[in-house]
């Protein structure tokens, strides 16, 4: 007896030991972040940029994630999206170590959490047309005295999810507002009112609308056109319409890029916003090119733009007011949409509509050590045509034909990598100037630089980027964005300023995977239905008109009494009307039928097919065995 109980206790003790070891091993394993993200889009793995940011945090960040998970009626795709956001935030918390704290809140109606959510700037979305049921899906970030909120995570923006969160963390933990330099030959910063001692004061010019937009996020420092050296405290520089820049200034830009700066340059073969041309014309001088280019620099990097040619693309044509005020279709006044943008690039991935009046194309191959991304391009049927002709309105469909280049023409590109200088001789010297030997001119990039080239300047001008809204209060005017032009500028600066953390952040994939086949069936059915519906609708209209005609004739001739034929006609037409409406309803019902029957077939297949096969197999096997044992 004793032997068996001691064996039991030995066994039990052994088990306890094993349990203890198991728990210990599990605890260790829980701390080891070794995992395999098998999802196609690596949905649950944060990018290097974010890791770097989180690893280098020196202050605490509190993330408050608000999601109305207990709200009934929340669509399941929203719940799944919320789960994905929560998982991603957990990763942020994990990688942020002790600096990042994540709180999950459910703002139930009339609860404290709901009040906090509203105060934090979160916006709920209504689930029904009356706004009774609302769902919150937002994030509030706070670090020290600074805070920011993502009011609502729209599922359409899923690809920007990591970028949105990382950007927000960067904004509240960064020491200062990123400074952006602005070098422009056009009066974008506005002009002070001119003093006229003899008469009424002439009004000054307002800065261009985009400057105000940028000032929301960045500190803008305007640089002189003749600057010879870009200040070291500027990491991001926007250059607008670099017409007639001196070699010294171009050299400054070159060195800026080589020291790791981010250059965003807008050049234009045909800049209509260049007033100096118009002023020149008014004074009787022949119109000169209002064009600008940076070929002096970009040639060294493998890229060039022909300043005399603009892109003509039939698929992006816009109706504009041509010569003499007539509306005209211009193929060089480009209205660019999703198909023209590289969806994988953050700066343009979410843009819907960008308008480029007379843009140039960039040609060439990036030099060694550089990588080129095309952000915006034309369709493949586009071609180049002389800029002057384009403005004269010679690009109507009946105008001179242009031969397509056969490939899409890039109009906005981004170069990254190690740049080589465009001034191998060093700092340019004027005639008679002594050689300056103690100036260190960089021959090659000391840090990876970024150069964004956009082939149009007019897109940022007020007439083409915004719509003025007259509020009527003492002439105060507000504006609204007419398209995504300024958003493009904002994105470009956002993506290329601050730190390299955001530069490498690619747009992540989406977790939504619709049933393509079913969607295609729905579209095909909808098309079919539309054709049928149009036909039936026409029939219906015919019947109705005939009916009303009959009524009218009746009223004209015989005020009160209907002839029996007429009555019969009316009845017949009424019947027809009912028939046609019924047919319409049937067509609508039928179009779902294909889809429903597919669903049913698949359901049966999945529930019954294999079990049936297994049962059959088993019965057969059983039958064979029984037969064998019987004989």
């Amino acid at each position, binding site marked *: 007896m004793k032997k068996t109980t001691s064996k039991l206790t030995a066994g039990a003790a052994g088990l306890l030991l094993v349990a203890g070891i198991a728990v210990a091993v599990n605890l260790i394993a829980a701390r080891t972040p070794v995992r395999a993200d*098998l*999802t196609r889009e690596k949905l*649950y793995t944060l990018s290097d940029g974010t890791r770097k940011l989180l690893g280098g945090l020196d202050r605490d960040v509190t993330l408050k994630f608000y999601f109305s998970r207990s709200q009934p009626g929340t669509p399941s795709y929203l719940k799944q999206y919320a789960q994905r956001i929560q998982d991603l935030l957990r990763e942020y918390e994990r990688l942020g170590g002790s600096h990042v704290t994540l709180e999950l809140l459910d703002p139930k109606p009339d609860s404290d959490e709901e009040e906090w959510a509203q105060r934090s700037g979160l916006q709920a979305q209504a689930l029904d047309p009356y706004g009774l049921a609302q769902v919150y899906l937002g994030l509030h970030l706070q670090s020290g005295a600074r805070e920011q909120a993502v009011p609502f995570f729209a599922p359409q923006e899923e690809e920007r999810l990591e970028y949105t969160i990382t950007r927000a963390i960067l904004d509240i933990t960064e020491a200062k507002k990123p400074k952006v330099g602005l070098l422009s030959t056009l009066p974008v910063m506005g002009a002070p009112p001119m003093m006229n001692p003899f008469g009424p004061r002439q009004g000054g010019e307002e800065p261009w609308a985009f400057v105000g937009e940028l000032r929301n996020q960045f500190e803008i420092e305007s640089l002189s056109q003749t600057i010879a050296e870009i200040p070291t405290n500027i990491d991001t520089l926007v250059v607008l319409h670099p017409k007639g820049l001196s070699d010294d200034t171009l050299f400054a830009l070159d060195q800026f890029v080589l020291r790791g700066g981010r250059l965003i340059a807008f050049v234009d073969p045909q800049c209509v916003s260049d007033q100096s041309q118009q002023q020149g014309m008014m004074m009787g001088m022949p119109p000169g090119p209002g064009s600008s280019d940076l070929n002096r620099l970009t040639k060294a990097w493998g890229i060039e733009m022909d300043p005399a040619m603009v892109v003509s693309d039939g698929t992006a044509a816009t109706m504009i007011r041509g010569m003499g005020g007539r509306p005209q279709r211009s193929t060089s006044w480009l209205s660019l949409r999703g198909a023209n943008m590289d969806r994988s690039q953050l700066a343009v991935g979410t843009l819907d509509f960008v308008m480029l009046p007379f843009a140039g194309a960039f040609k060439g191959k990036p030099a060694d050590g550089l990588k080129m991304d095309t952000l915006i391009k034309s369709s493949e049927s586009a071609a180049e045509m002389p800029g002057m002709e384009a403005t004269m309105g010679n690009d109507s469909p009946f105008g001179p034909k242009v031969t397509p280049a056969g490939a899409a023409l890039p109009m906005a590109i981004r170069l990254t990598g190690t740049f080589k200088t465009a001034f191998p001789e060093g700092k340019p010297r004027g005639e008679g100037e002594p050689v300056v030997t103690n100036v260190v001119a960089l021959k090659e990039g000391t840090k990876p630089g970024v150069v964004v080239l956009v082939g149009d300047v007019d897109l940022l001008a007020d007439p083409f980027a915004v719509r003025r809204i007259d509020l009527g209060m003492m002439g105060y005017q507000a504006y609204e964005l007419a398209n995504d032009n300024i958003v493009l500028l904002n994105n470009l600066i956002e993506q290329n300023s601050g730190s390299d953390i955001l530069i490498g952040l690619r747009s992540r994939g989406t977790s939504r995977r619709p049933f393509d086949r079913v969607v295609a069936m729905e579209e095909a059915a909808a098309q079919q239905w539309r054709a049928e519906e149009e036909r039936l609708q026409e029939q219906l209209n015919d019947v109705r008109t005939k009916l009303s005609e009959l009524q009218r004739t009746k009223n004209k001739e015989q005020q009160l009494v209907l002839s029996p034929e007429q009555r019969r006609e009316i009845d017949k037409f009424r019947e027809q009307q009912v028939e046609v409406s019924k047919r319409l309803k049937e067509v609508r019902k039928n179009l779902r039928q294909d889809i429903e029957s597919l669903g049913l077939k698949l359901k049966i297949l999945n529930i019954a097919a294999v079990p049936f096969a297994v049962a059959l197999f088993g019965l057969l096997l059983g039958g064979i065995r029984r037969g064998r044992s019987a004989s």
Partner: protein
Amino acid sequence: MSSFSFVRSVTRREWQSYFNSPVAYVFLVIFLSLAGFFTFQVRRLFDEGQADLQAFFTWHPWLYLILVPAATMRAWAEERRSGTMELLLTLPIRPMHAIAGKFLAAWLFMGLALLLTFPVPLTVWYLGDPDLGAIAAGYVGSFLLAGAYVAVGQFTSSLTRNQVISFILAVVIGLFLILAGWPPVTEMLASWAPVRFVEAVASFSFMYHYEWMQRGVIHVRDIVYFGSIVVFMLLATQVVLENRKGK
């Protein structure tokens, strides 16, 4: 003969015995039709319109909870009842060989059941463009989960000669291991317990360690967890059997 071949022969014997009786077929038919039913009828996979198998994998813990104990309850109870237990244990093999062999046979059988669910991923692949990596991870997770349930079932089966008791015990243990991490339970706990405690309790549960694999990410800690459950349960089975040897 090496340990490996001992184990292998036990496995083969067990496997064949599965298919010699109606048990295997009944189990497969029920498992597959229930899985299909829950996925397509209850969770309406087709109508939801998303080409992923979350609606499918989410049922596995619950299906296993009921069906696996039913399949494993006879593992040792049967031997004990029919008297072949002694025979088995006196063969020149160690008890652990027999235990491992039976476990493997049952686990592989579950693997077969999972394989036979192939129409489901085939359906979403036909309808759309599913994330195959995530689906693969889901199957891996389900297979590991099944292994854990099987190990629990083996253990409870060794405790008694009554199959019904074995079944009930296995379901109860399984229920504990699921509920510890089930959102409604964790939320209830969270209302009065500190977060650390709730998380610690949840980390003992099947759900906690199955969740990520459903979504497509395989964590080492989840593999270690399921492995620990299996090892612990098999060792526990050994202790039980060795102490019952006399009886």
